[in-house]
């Protein structure tokens, strides 16, 4: 599919919603309309100016009459950057949702239904019915399997909602369990997992906690004090201190998922990337997912940890494969 006709289609789609939007709102600034439709103000200006060449079909040999064309208040646009439609000939009503639009929103609803504020609202089922009925064709089947909300998730959500710190036991991999008190800032739901991002009273810094590793969660009466500290976009966030360099086939790169990584080299279908990790030895777990297709290059402590981790697991099965060279 070439990009040119796609662009035209996008613009047509935009007009169909832009016209009823402008008619409903009367006067709208270029900036506001541009932000609403996700385009630049220059693009919005061009779109609105082009609207005035849209109109009802003329008769052969005759030009269309002015009242048969869209028109805008040109002075208002040029002097104040404000859009107002002064003559409209069609497209007054908001069109139905396309099958894709309805599907994208329906699947999104399935996921956010687990958000307590949404669940409490009781609006999800009604919305699903409205989207399906308002769709031009049957919405595409796009489904996100529902997941039960655990007690820990409920407690953490409640803390966020009430604006109080939450206390819990945290069991990070390869570390002794700790008791944490955290000012909740945000709950991230990704890949079916829930993460709490917040200000950790113990570490005096923003941290991200995997809720599967949280137990004995309870609400405190301590009001949030660091709720507005900046949240790192990535998972590891401020905890990143070390780096690990790994090599893996290009086609498996997507398995790294949201894990923060930076590409160093790519050749012959093999990629070398550097991952940020609090403890480089933690790569041993990630490496497991690749079944030998990912090789840990540096640092050597990470390389050795990966080998020993798999080797110790093999020992459980009494197959001393790692020492096969000597046994033979």
């Amino acid at each position, binding site marked *: 599919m070439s990009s040119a006709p796609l662009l*035209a*289609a996008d*613009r*047509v789609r935009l*007009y*169909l919603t832009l016209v009823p939007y402008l008619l409903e*709102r009367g006067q709208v600034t270029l900036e506001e309309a541009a932000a609403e439709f996700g385009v630049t103000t220059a693009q919005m200006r061009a779109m609105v100016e082009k609207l005035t*060449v849209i109109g009802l*079909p003329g008769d*052969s040999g005759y030009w269309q009459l002015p009242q048969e064309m869209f028109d805008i208040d040109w002075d208002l646009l040029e002097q104040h950057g404000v859009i107002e439609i002064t003559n409209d000939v069609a*497209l007054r009503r*908001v*069109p*139905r949702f*396309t*099958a*894709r*639009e309805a599907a*994208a*929103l329906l*699947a*999104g*609803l399935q996921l*956010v239904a687990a*958000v307590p*504020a*949404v669940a409490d609202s009781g*609006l*999800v089922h009604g919305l699903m019915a*409205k989207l399906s009925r308002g769709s*031009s064709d049957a919405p*595409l*089947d796009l*489904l*996100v399997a529902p997941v039960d909300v*655990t007690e820990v998730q409920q407690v953490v*959500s409640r803390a966020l909602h009430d604006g109080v710190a939450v206390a819990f036991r945290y*069991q990070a991999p390869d570390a002794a369990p700790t008791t944490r008190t955290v000012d909740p800032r*945000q709950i991230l*739901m990704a*890949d079916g997992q829930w993460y709490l991002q917040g200000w950790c009273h113990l570490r005096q810094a923003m941290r991200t906690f995997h809720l599967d590793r949280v137990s004995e969660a309870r609400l405190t009466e301590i009001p949030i004090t660091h709720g507005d500290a900046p949240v790192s976009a990535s998972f590891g966030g401020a905890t990143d201190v070390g780096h690990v360099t790994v090599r893996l086939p290009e086609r498996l790169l*997507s398995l790294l*998922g949201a894990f923060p990584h930076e590409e160093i080299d790519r050749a012959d279908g093999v990629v070398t990337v550097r991952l940020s990790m609090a403890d480089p030895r933690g790569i*041993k*777990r*990630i490496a*497991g*997912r690749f*079944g030998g297709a990912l090789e840990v290059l540096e640092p050597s402590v990470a390389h*050795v940890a*990966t*080998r020993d*981790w*798999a*080797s*110790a*697991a093999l020992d459980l099965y009494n197959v001393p494969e*790692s*020492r096969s*060279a000597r046994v033979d």
Partner: protein
Amino acid sequence: MTPAQIPAEERLTNLVVALMATEIGLTKQQILDNVSGYRQRIEAGAKPDSLEKMFERDKDELRALGMPVETIGDPLDPQDLREARYRIPQTEYDLPADIEFSDAELAVLRLAGSVWSSESVSADAQSGVRKIRALGIDGDEPIIGFAPRIAVRDAAFPALQEGIERNRVVVFEYLKPGEDAPTRRRVRPLAQVEYEARWHLFGIDLDADGERTFLLSRIVGDVKVTGQTFDSALRDGAAERALAGLAAVAASQHALLEITPGTEAALRLSRRGAPAVQGILVPYVDKHIFADELATYGPEVRVVEPADLRHAVIERLRAIVAAHGGGVEAS
């Protein structure tokens, strides 16, 4: 203005306006003669054949945008489209007037529309939200504190969506773990389902002549959307059937595992399993995917049974050791 200067979006939008303004419909000739964008080309002496083709493409484009372009043929001979009339019925175009959205509902939909990491699906969701905004709804304050995300990392996803949307058979190469080479699959795509954070295609495998579920991550290379169509009624309830099928597989397949208490493996797996006499029973859908996960836990978990899963885990562990110079150093 010369015809070449009239951009496609202008012609298409004029076409929409014309098709909506007519009750009885317009013939192809009326459209070519009168709608701005075609008219100028006729006047400039463009060939009728090429203009008719252009109109056919434009019509398809509008239908792809969800426009209900209706063809009213000769009632005596519906196959004869020479005198056919075209129109967009207002009642099928408009969002039904009795569908209303509250400010609270818009806030929920905004959150729902914000979850997609895939640009194309995200654009669709935003476009849907905008239609509600165009109704004059401003929406409550955004729901904050929650950042739900749906990741779509599989390159096959958009093409499969297109196949589902247009009821077209898709063809792709599918590589099952343990097989040396991918096999070619011809599938009527019915639904895409995210289950345990992985996208699955549910469809009818034409060669196997039955409903099958495919993991998108195992599709190799590009997905081809063919010209072969199928009855859209096949899609009815497909996503629910797919989900029920995956759940049934998980319910029928359990691994007996021994887990070291207090470890990452214990935290992640015990949540999903049930205690057994010796260890814990955990349901799973796909042997290879579960083996991939179990390998990450290293010595924190030991597979007791089934044997094929245990073997799959051992195979992975051996490969990891080999990739990190295990045998060499030990000798």
